Every structure is written in C-alpha cells, then in structure tokens.
C-alpha cells in the first residue's frame, strides 16, 4: 500500500519517529496463540444460564403470561418478567441526550416485533434454560402489523409504538430532520434537466464471528462484575445502573477485545437483564446469543428508502438537490433518531450545491429494531448519492468522474448545513485514482485543487 506523500506535503511535518511506522500490533501474538481473552472465555464456577422467551408475533397484545410449568422445571433458579425489572426501560437515547425512551427491557402489555423479549429464564444449565423457556406459555392477541416505511406513515397505518403516538420520531424540526439552503424550487426552474430517483436497501447484519452476550458475576463489597464485549464500557454501565436502579459504583464492567463488533455491540441489550439475573439469584449468570439471535434479534443496519431529485444544467452543475430519506428504525428507536440526523448532515454529499432541501425521517415498523452499524447514517446514503451522480453524468453525456470534479466541494465552499468546507481532499483522491486506474480525464481536472475556490 503506497502513501502518496506529494499531496498536501506543505501541510505536513513528516519528521515523526513512531508515528508513520508499521509497528507490530500488541495483540496479534496473543491472537495467533489463541490466548486473547474474549468474554465467553471466562471460566466461572457455579455459572447459571439465561435464555429468553421471545414473541412469535410481529405485533400483538399480551393477554397472559403463564410461567408455572417453567417454574416447576428442576433446573430453573429464577424467572424474570417485566415487573421484576426495577426500571423497565432502555435508556440509550437519554444517555446521548436525545430522549424519549420508548422500549421496555421485558415486554408487558404489547410486543412490537417478532423476537421481542418477554420472559427471562435463569437455569443451572443451558439445556435446562432452553427446556424451561419452551414451557412458558404466553397468550397473545395478534394485531395488524406494518413493514413498509411509507405505509407506516400513511393515515390509518397500525400504530407501532405508543410512546411516540405516531410511526415516526418527532424532531424539533417536525416529522423529519430538515436541512434547507437556498431555494430548490427556484433551482429546479433554472435547471436544464430534472432527475428524480428512488433507492432502497434492506437490513444488514454485523454478523461478527463472536456473538453478543455477557457474563455477570456477583463480586466483593456488594458489587457486580460484568464481562462484556460492549463497544462502550460506560454507556453500558450507565444504562445498566439506571435499569437496575443501583448506583453506577456498584457495577464493574470489564471488556477486553470484542470478537468483531462493527457497531453491533453498542445497544447494551444483554447486560442489564444479565446483571439483574445475577442480582436476583446471587449467582454468576451468562447470557450468550445464539447465532440465530445474533442474526435476527440483535439490531441490524436500518433499511433505508431514499428519494433524490436533482436539477442539472447542460454544463454539468447540480443546481438543486432535494432528498427525502426514510430510515427504518424497526419497532423501537435504539439509536436511529441520532442516525437519521447524522444522515441529514451528510447529504447532499461532498459536492457544492447552492440549493438543497433535505428531510430525513426515522420511521417505526414492526420489525427487529435497527441501530448503529459501520457507516451509520452514511453508507446507504453514499450508495444512493453516488449512483445518482453516475446517472446525472450520463444524462448530459459527461464522463462520470469528470462530472464529480465539476461539483466537488473545496475549502471555503458553503455546505448545506451552513458550515464552510475545510480540509477537503475529494479532488485529489479522484485525481490520483484517475491516473492510477487509467480512467482518462481531461487535463484541466488534473490541475484542480481542493484549496482553490472554483472560478
């Protein structure tokens, strides 16, 4: 891998000693010997096992929960239902100052997605926990479900999440996070071409080789240890302390290396219930997701639907861009309201466009809640944006790479969210790629610079 030092050389001091060197990693020797400790490699005597009873329906009212048969299973030590959870609400959004909270740790009146946790079984063996979970009987009254983001926003759609009162997250800007610069309608008026397109994606899983899970262990001095692969030690600690209604000081979270995470070990859905189980039983408890749970229960990347309408001039300028983006949050918010807002700050892409209108919606549907994943709020937007750029170029018969040069942002350009561009380098990346990959472009594009305002 080459580092092309000639670009921006006058902005760098390359006289560093350690930085810039490919020093051997501190963990690889442990990896190749298999001695890197992962959370499930802790060997703890007297370990109990937690398995979850989950909703088999997409959307249903809970009429009755009958755990009596499960309680009689000889291996069962404790059964946990909603009323046993001191503060039965996940707190992710309030911890990043985004509120309101909208998701129970264990469901009590309704289930809103297939797989939603209802009853936690704690037993002295994995097998016992599975067997007892199968003995729990929950009576449901099925409700109509909605799966499509635009259907969810239509009047009369089934209400997914009563905490919100409508099937979208309400920002202070209304039903969407809005960004507005200039006047897109005026821009469309003076455009020579209009292109309106729709882009879709479906949910994508982090699928790390190590599944999500944790082990909670009662410790000295009335504290609880939690061995966890969480990506955010204190986020999880604060989250658990609120749900358990105990001071954070009683919790001791120990991570190590996560066996792959990619944004999928942030939601902290396993630690609170496992810590609660350890608190209630006085015993160490492990809750380790099966591969099915990792695939279908743990949050995925949100599916998105993106509409882009562009106004283009004959000479290749995008004069107006209007974007409507629907992020499928699933049944609960998790971090999606934050993600949809991040997308609003990312559109219209690294291009200078004088008239921009962006509306990003966080929509609730009856599916597994989505949450952060590598490229949260950006990846799918980039798919839509860069395919759109390709289409626009071809409308006017321009080379797709040259077309990007014409519109690329430069230092000092105003962005749609009213920040001045700084540290731009899109032009240089494209120049280097063009030469290296033998994608010929006119020489004037090779002379451009991110540091020079356009003529």
């Amino acid at each position, binding site marked *: 891998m*080459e*580092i092309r030092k000639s670009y921006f050389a006058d902005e760098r001091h390359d006289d*560093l*000693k*350690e*930085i*810039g*060197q*490919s*020093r051997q*990693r501190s963990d690889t020797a442990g990896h190749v010997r298999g001695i890197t400790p992962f959370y499930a490699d802790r060997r703890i005597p007297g370990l109990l096992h937690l398995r979850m009873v989950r909703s088999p329906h997409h959307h249903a009212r809970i009429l009755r929960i009958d755990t009596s048969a499960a309680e009689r299973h000889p291996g069962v030590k404790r059964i946990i239902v909603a009323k046993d959870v001191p503060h039965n609400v996940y707190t992710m959004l309030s911890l990043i100052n985004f509120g309101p909270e909208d998701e129970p740790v264990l469901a009590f009146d309704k289930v809103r997605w297939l797989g939603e946790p209802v009853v936690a079984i704690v037993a002295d063996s994995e097998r016992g926990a599975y067997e007892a979970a199968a003995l729990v009987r929950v009576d449901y009254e099925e409700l109509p479900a909605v799966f499509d*983001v635009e259907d969810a926003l239509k009047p009369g759609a089934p209400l997914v999440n009563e905490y919100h009162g409508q099937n979208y997250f309400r920002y202070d*800007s209304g039903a969407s996070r*809005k*960004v507005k610069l200039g006047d897109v309608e005026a821009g469309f008026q003076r455009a020579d071409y209009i292109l309106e397109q729709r*882009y*879709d994606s*479906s949910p*994508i899983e982090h*699928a790390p080789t190590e599944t999500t899970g944790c082990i909670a262990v009662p410790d000295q001095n009335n504290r609880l240890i939690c061995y966890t692969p969480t*990506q955010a*030690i*204190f986020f999880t600690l604060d989250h658990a302390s609120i749900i358990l209604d105990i001071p954070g000081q009683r919790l*001791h*979270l*120990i*991570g*190590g290396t996560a*066996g792959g*995470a*990619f944004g999928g070990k*942030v939601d902290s859905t396993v630690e609170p219930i496992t810590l609660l189980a350890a608190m209630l039983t006085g015993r160490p408890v492990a809750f380790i997701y099966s591969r*099915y749970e990792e*695939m*279908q229960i743990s949050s995925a990347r949100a*599916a998105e639907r993106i509409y882009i309408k562009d106004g283009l001039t004959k000479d290749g300028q995008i004069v107006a861009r209007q974007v409507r983006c629907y992020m499928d949050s699933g049944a609960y918010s998790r971090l999606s309201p934050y993600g949809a*807002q*991040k997308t609003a700050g*990312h559109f219209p892409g*690294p291009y200078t466009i004088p008239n921009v209108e962006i509306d990003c919606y966080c929509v609730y*549907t009856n599916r*597994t809640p989505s949450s952060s994943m*590598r*490229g*949260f709020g*950006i990846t799918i937007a*980039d*798919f839509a944006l*860069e*395919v759109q750029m390709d289409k626009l170029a071809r409308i006017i018969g321009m080379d797709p790479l040259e077309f990007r040069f014409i519109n*690329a942002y430069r230092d000092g350009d105003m962005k749609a*969210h*009213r920040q001045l561009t700084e540290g731009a*380098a*899109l032009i*240089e*990346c*494209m120049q*280097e790629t063009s030469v290296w990959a033998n*994608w010929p472009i006119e020489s004037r594009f090779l002379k451009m610079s991110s540091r020079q305002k356009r003529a």
Partner: protein
Amino acid sequence: MAKKRGRGVAAVNYPTGMNLGGDPTQALVHSTTTGNFIVSLSSVDLGQGMKSIMAQICAETLGVPTERVIVDTADSDTGPHCTGTFASRGTHRAGNAVIAAAKEARDVMLEVAANMLEVDSRDLRTDGTGNIHIVGVPGKSVSVTDVALAAHFEQGRSISGRGMFFTPRSYPSPTDGAMKPSTCYAHACTIAEVEVDTETGEVDVLSIKSVYEVGRALNPKMVEQQLVGGTWMGVSHALYETTEPYYPARDHAARDFNEYLMLGVANLPKIESRVIERPAPDGPYGAKGLGEMCANAPIPAIANAIFDAVGVRVDSLPVTPEKILRALLAKGNSAVA
C-alpha cells in the same frame, strides 16, 4: 451465455466522531519506576488495534519507543471515561486525549531529567530510543529508566499526566438544519471493475482500486488492515448481505451463516489501496477516522460498474443475480451474446 465487463466509480467523504460532537474521552498516562509507561483508557479494542495505536501515539509524544508503552483499557474501575468505540471516533478522540496526557507526563519527565543534568528542561531532547540528551552537548545524556527511578525515589515526582478531548455538542437549527456535524472529514475514491454473467446474473468483482485521504496514516500496516477488511465488507454488502432478502416482507429471514450470504474467500477481488494525507488540524498527529469509510465507496462503484457492463440499473441493495436478471429481462437483454 455472455460475460460482460464494466467499470464504475464512486467518491465519498466521511465525518470523524459522533455526529454534532459532545463525545468526550479521557486518558491517563503514568510511568513505572523503570521507565515504562501505562496508558489508562476505557476505549474498547474491537480488533481495529485501538490498544496498539494508542501506545504508538503515546510513545511519539513522550519520545520513547512504542514497546515501552502498555495500554490498559476496558475496565470501568481503572480507566477514565470514554464515550465508546464507534462513529470512527476512537483514534481521533482517544488519540488526542492520550497526547494531552503524555505531554503532561513528558513535561515532568524532562523536569526530573533537567534536575539530574543540572540544565533547564527546555535544553533537553528525547532521542526516541530511551534516552534524554542535552541539545548540542554530545555525551551528556541520561536514560529514561534512570529518570523514572530518580523521579520516584530521589525527587518525589510523579511522572504522569491527564488528558481530555471534547468537542462541544452542536445542535441543529430546527428551521434550516444549520449544524456542525464534525470537525474533520476523510475522503475516498473507488473504481470497481466487474464481470456480469448475463445468463445467471452473477457478478464477479474483479478489482477494486481506491485512494483514501486519511489525515495521517499513523501505522500504515494497520491502516491497510482496515482498508482491505472494509473493502471486503463493502463488496459483500453490495452483492450479498441482508437479513431480510424480501424486505419489506419478513419472509425467508436469514437465520444463520448458511442463509446470510457474504463474500467468500474464493471470490475476492484484487483490492489495491493508496493513501493521501491531509492532516486534520485537530487530529492526533493529523489523523482522521477511517474505519467506516472504507466499506462505503465500493458499493455504488460496483452498482455503477454493473450498469457499465450490462446497461441495467439495480437501485436496491443487495444487488442480487435475481434483480439483475429481472432487469435484463425487462430490458429484453437477458443472455445477450
């Protein structure tokens, strides 16, 4: 049956850190009595090499070799607060906190050495191999090990430091969305070359060439790890990955690795990467976050390459053989010779 080749391009940027800021990270650095250094953090290593790169950053700031620095992290009892390892914030936030902490520790280390050598600490320099010299006076030096011993047992000084990095939270205006998502952005341009089988709709990604602008490549081999792994994941997203193949219907949901398809070991494209460095003024030695960006540009580049190859657009992910064949059929172009 025909196999058609095509090329496509995509260019992207990527913000470093949590959107709108407000995501602090703290670091503590202290020396042992024998001149090794411990960095205390709560940032989590996900395999991206967080611990390794923080050691390297600390070593650079202190002026010692990387192998003298140990990173202790992911224990809520021993590490100061970190918001978390996500949003491409780790290197940037924790790196800056480590630099601040290491600077404070270095200042004390140099004061102790100055006392030992009877000079002003401003007249000293570290040689990066474990010694501290008087500038312009060859032969007058003292080892970091001896300085650490002297600090603890003779001068009663703690060679340690505290660091914090925090960008205040910005809030979007409700009317026009004026906001400050990030203080720095990385960039990438990718050209993908594909071969499409017009009879089966299958896509073989032949090559991915990408140029990344990352602020500064702190450890080039580790940067390359992210770029190659991320590109793989991007290709996999483009063509295969979904938990709901008939979204928005939930039918045939992928339940395991048999049903959740990913790019396999025998289908790898030739992945080549180059790096450009435009340091971020507020990055640790100029570094920007890159762990997420590297998975993004390949996706539209592949979609554009498919259009170049066979003249159809599939505007929904993943771009499966079924979708390509349906598009070809609709165009009347299936199995074009």
